[in-house]
């Protein structure tokens, strides 16, 4: 009798586990299949797209779609603009944020709490509440249609999150090391540059990758402040491109793939850091 109920509960458990794995599997398919589908149609020609089932595998794998949009569609230009603007903003942001975090967590001063609050509240402010004055401000400074406007905006708007993530690390850094350094007559600059900064490398790399993703994907600032093709980044560039090639699905798919491949590569190698950074913004904040 007891044997029987044990068997039964085992069976129920197995059934429940199967159901759970099915749910998780379905969610995974929902999350990943649209991208697989995108990859497939990026390799198709219009004949296949309009003539055959959307679920069919590509017949001839037209990698020339990629080559075609890379040069003809100006995508190479947008791509390198994205790389330049992303890289510059990321470097500027993590350096400035490291300075601020160091000063707030490792030095004693009256206003430090208030300054931290300013940065934290900055995280909640909708950019649409600042866009018109920013536009006007850049126009006055003659920075409209200048990549500097974008780099400055990315830096200012990503400082709060970057500081938030760095803060978690700096708070736990042991004070003994600094104290020893002060005993040895190290200046504050040397403590920051030669001790704190190198020690924070792991968390710094988290902030770098998170900033990279956000900047790479940003749309509104570029769409508002940049008007000429030679400065546009990929997000705005592909918008333009698609506007011109509305019915060329293969070209559109290839363009979208080009814009997301760098992110997917970064994710493949750095997924743990990305997961950590994404979670940090809300859990610690």
């Amino acid at each position, binding site marked *: 009798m007891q044997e029987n109920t044990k068997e039964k509960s085992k069976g129920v458990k197995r059934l429940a586990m199967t159901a*759970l794995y099915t*749910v*998780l599997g379905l*969610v*995974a398919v929902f*999350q*990943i299949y*649209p991208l697989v*589908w995108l990859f497939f149609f990026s390799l198709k020609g219009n004949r296949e*797209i*309009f003539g055959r*089932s959307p*679920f069919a595998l590509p017949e001839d794998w037209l990698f020339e779609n990629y080559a075609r949009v890379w040069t003809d569609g100006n995508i190479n230009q947008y791509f390198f603009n994205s790389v330049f603007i992303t890289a510059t903003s990321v470097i500027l942001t993590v350096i*400035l*944020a490291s*300075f*601020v975090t160091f000063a*707030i967590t490792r*030095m004693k*001063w009256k206003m430090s709490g208030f300054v931290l609050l*300013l940065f934290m509240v*900055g995280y*909640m*402010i*909708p*950019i*649409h*509440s*600042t*866009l*018109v*004055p*920013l536009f*006007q*401000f850049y126009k006055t400074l003659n920075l409209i249609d200048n990549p500097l406007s974008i780099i*400055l*905006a990315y*830096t*200012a*708007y990503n400082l709060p999150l970057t500081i938030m993530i760095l803060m978690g690390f700096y708070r736990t850094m042991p004070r003994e090391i600094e104290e020893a350094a002060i005993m040895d007559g190290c*200046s504050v*600059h040397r403590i920051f540059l030669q001790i704190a900064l190198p020690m924070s490398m792991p968390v710094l790399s988290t902030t770098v990758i998170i900033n990279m993703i956000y900047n*790479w*994907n940003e*749309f*509104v600032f570029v769409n508002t402040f940049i008007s000429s093709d030679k400065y546009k980044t*990929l*997000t705005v560039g*592909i918008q333009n491109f698609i506007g011109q090639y509305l019915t060329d*699905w293969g070209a*559109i*798919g290839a363009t979208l793939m080009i*814009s*997301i491949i760098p992110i997917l590569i970064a*994710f493949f190698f750095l*997924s743990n850091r990305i*997961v950590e950074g*994404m979670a940090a913004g*809300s*859990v610690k904040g």
Partner: protein
Amino acid sequence: MSNKKIIALYVLPSLLLLAGLVYIPIFLTGYYGLMEWNGVGAMEFIGLDNYMNLLQDPKFWFSARNSFFLALFSTLSLILYLAVSLILAGKIKGKELLRKIYLIPMLLSSVAIAQLWIKIYDPNNGMLNSLLQTLGVDSPPAWLAQRETVLVAIFIAIIWQYAGFYIIIYSAALKGIPASLVEAAEIDGATPIQIAYKIKVPLISGVIKTTIVLAIVGSLKYFDLIYVMTGGGPNGASEVIASYMYNQAFGIKNFGYGSAIGFALLILALITTWGIQKLTASKNDSIQF
């Protein structure tokens, strides 16, 4: 160099950027809202007219209604994400990999996501309607072109985008629950569902609160995906506050009115954040474990 100078050197550059590009602009937005201004010519002071018009503008209220729905749906979908996270917190093989797979859409730009979903929803060659036709639905809707379906269609894309993000947040919080608590409940004969509902969920209520703020304030700010997917259309049916602001200011160059909408958005975001903090704080106090 004195410490004071060093602190100034370390903090001031960032503080200036923050003040100049974030804080001063939000006050200027409120101020520009008092102006009649096309962005090029001179500003004309018109007092509170823009703000008064805003309160009587049916298009604004309609976009606010859509933003509200978005916030409501986003908050409700947190339950789904939490459920998946709770399943993943159990003894599941490959859970790390699954979490990472779920997160992938969150890493893509809203522009790419919008363009991809435009193709998925394409009435003739899209994935969704082909699937529906295979399943026997005769004339599936043109999802993004119809007033009745456009919001749902956009919202499904938003779930696709954000699911992984919230699952990662909940998973990180659930990992912080001491195993001893769960084991003790198991010994007492609690079922997995009881453990999830009565132990795990209350223990991460702080994080759940944070995600509610993120979901609601995030919905108020939501822009890129809708702007690219529908531009607020068809005929204003999917307009949200942010897209209405953008279309007024940078679309038809009504910068004074656009500023007033932007300022209203700010007030709304701040009040909501504050309100949720208040509401959930009193709730937490009354539940004791």
